[in-house]
């Protein structure tokens, strides 16, 4: 007789918050591009400001993450496994952490990279951002997947996106190898400690795409459980 029987039956969907989270993460990563531009042109004040923004967004993503976790109690009956959702959330969140790490590392050491590699670096970052953007898109399809009961054409569409993520990730690996080779060829010109960190930053940027790919892999796993 109480009116809330049917009302109480529907719990808050985790899908929208999940989408909001990955969108925030991507937004955070996007700041890397202006950050690198600023660094390349030795505008450290501006870089510091951008770092502050990235830091802020990473924190906002963290808040979103915590909210989702708290609102996903174990007594929910969902079309997706709760553990999968939480794991995916963790993977999503790691992307933002990486972005913050990269900036922090560069800012802390006032690390610059060789001017003639600037183009390569930019292309590399852009490609990595392609990956995070595609991850946003793929997670964005969860709405439609729910509508179609996680079946059929919509499923194929998302699987296609995940495949695309793989391809982009491969691309970034190739770009990384290229840049690494160029740095290696001229290693002796730089301060040895800087070189170590240069390699590290290079790797961390690649992690963005790696991590985005991992989100896609999680999504695929989630959908495969039929």
């Amino acid at each position: 007789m109480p009116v809330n029987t049917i009302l109480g039956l529907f719990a808050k969907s985790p899908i929208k918050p999940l989408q909001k989270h990955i969108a925030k993460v991507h937004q955070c990563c996007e700041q890397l591009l202006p950050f690198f531009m600023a660094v390349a042109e030795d505008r450290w004040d501006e870089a510091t400001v951008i770092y502050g923004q990235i830091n802020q967004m990473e924190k906002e993503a963290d808040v979103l993450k915590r909210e989702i976790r708290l609102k996903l109690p174990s007594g929910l009956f969902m079309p997706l496994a709760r553990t999968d959702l939480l794991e995916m959330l963790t993977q999503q969140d790691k992307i933002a952490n990486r972005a913050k790490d990269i900036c922090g590392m560069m800012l802390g050491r006032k690390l610059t990279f060789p001017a003639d590699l600037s183009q390569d670096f930019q292309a590399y970052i852009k490609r990595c951002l392609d990956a995070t953007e595609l991850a946003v898109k793929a997670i964005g399809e969860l709405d439609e997947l729910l509508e179609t009961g996680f079946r059929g054409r919509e499923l194929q569409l998302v699987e296609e996106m995940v495949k695309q993520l793989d391809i982009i990730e491969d691309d970034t690996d190739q770009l990384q190898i290229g840049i690494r080779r160029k740095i290696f060829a001229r290693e002796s010109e730089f301060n040895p400690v800087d070189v170590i960190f240069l390699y590290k930053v290079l790797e961390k940027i690649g992690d963005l795409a790696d991590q985005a790919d991992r989100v896609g892999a999680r999504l695929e796993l989630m959908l495969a459980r039929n």
Partner: protein
Amino acid sequence: MEILAQYGTQLVLIAALFGLLMAWGIGANDVANAMGTSVGTKTLTIRQAIIIAMIFEFTGAYLAGGEVTSTIKGGIIDPIAFTAHPDVLVLGMIASLLAAGVWLVVASFFGWPVSTTHSIVGAIVGFAVVSLGANAVQWDKFGSIVGSWVITPAIAGLIAYVLFISVQRLIFNTDNPLENAKRYGPVYIFLSAMVICLVTLQKGLNHVGLPLTSNESTLISLVLSLIAAIGGIFFIRRLRFNPQDDVKMHYSNVEKVFGVLMIVTACAMAFAHGSNDVANAIGPLSAVVSVVSHGGAISANSAIDWWVLPLGAVGIVLGLAMMGHKVMATLGTGITHLTPSRGFAAQLATASTVLLASGTGLPISTTQTLVGAIMGVGLARGIAAINLGVVRNIVISWVVTLPAGALLSILIFGLLEKIYL
């Protein structure tokens, strides 16, 4: 015996008053559960939902409420055991009504999801056992009623699952979902209308002076369903589809078609709800009326007095008109992420199941059947998140309500005995 002669009219009036109050309560509260999915998916405004509910709750109660009313009236207790004690039956039925009412008020105060049906059945069994002993109850009937409480949500769940999968296959997972929605929409409308008409007409409309043969009723059902389907085609044609909406969410326009289907299933829900739940209010009343008007004679199969069913129907409508708006307002905002396609599957499954139960005279809980149906859609991976805690609460309240209703009716029966006997 003397009591019946002396206080007969008074007792009937008391029973009628309580019956009306109970019906009022069902209209005010229960209907919100039955119509909640329609309002929650925003296919109907609150006003539209109330108007639909008023019309179809009334017709459902009046046209198809007879079987379940008979069960409550004389199916749970053993009429033979009461032939020597018609006064006990009359007081007991009044006590049951009161007990169920009290229990529902208590439960809604604490927010427990209890069912009117369960309370009234528990109450009737309670007074019967205490007044005349265990053999005053037809335990096999009681057993099948209780069994149906478990089975009906499961059946509704299964139907909803199959319906939802069929919707996915035929519409959502195709090249052109919108075209297919327009094509199959009327078919689903036909199906929904057919279920309502068949169940209602097969049981016959003798009590409203419309005796029909089986063939006649099938024919009429077909015609009415076709009319509904054609009406559906008309309404779907009139829909304005905006491709812009699909940019944000691919299936916005498809869901608009389901909005039309949901209007039909909302009617079916109200009809089914009226047909099953009116008995909770007027079943005991009709027992009282029948005993008093026959001067104490109890017969198992006596017809329900002509004014009893409409009284219940009017009570429900009154409750709806007075309280429906307030109660539904809380629903409209609450249900998120339930789209019309899901609401349609859940409602059609619930309405069919409840109507079948009404046809066979089984008093069941509409709300719990709907919960079962929603779970069915959830199993087909159609709903983002279902709170299993609510399901657990329902099971708990289910177990508590039977003895609680029984206990209360025993207490009230004792009181009435002191007053009248």
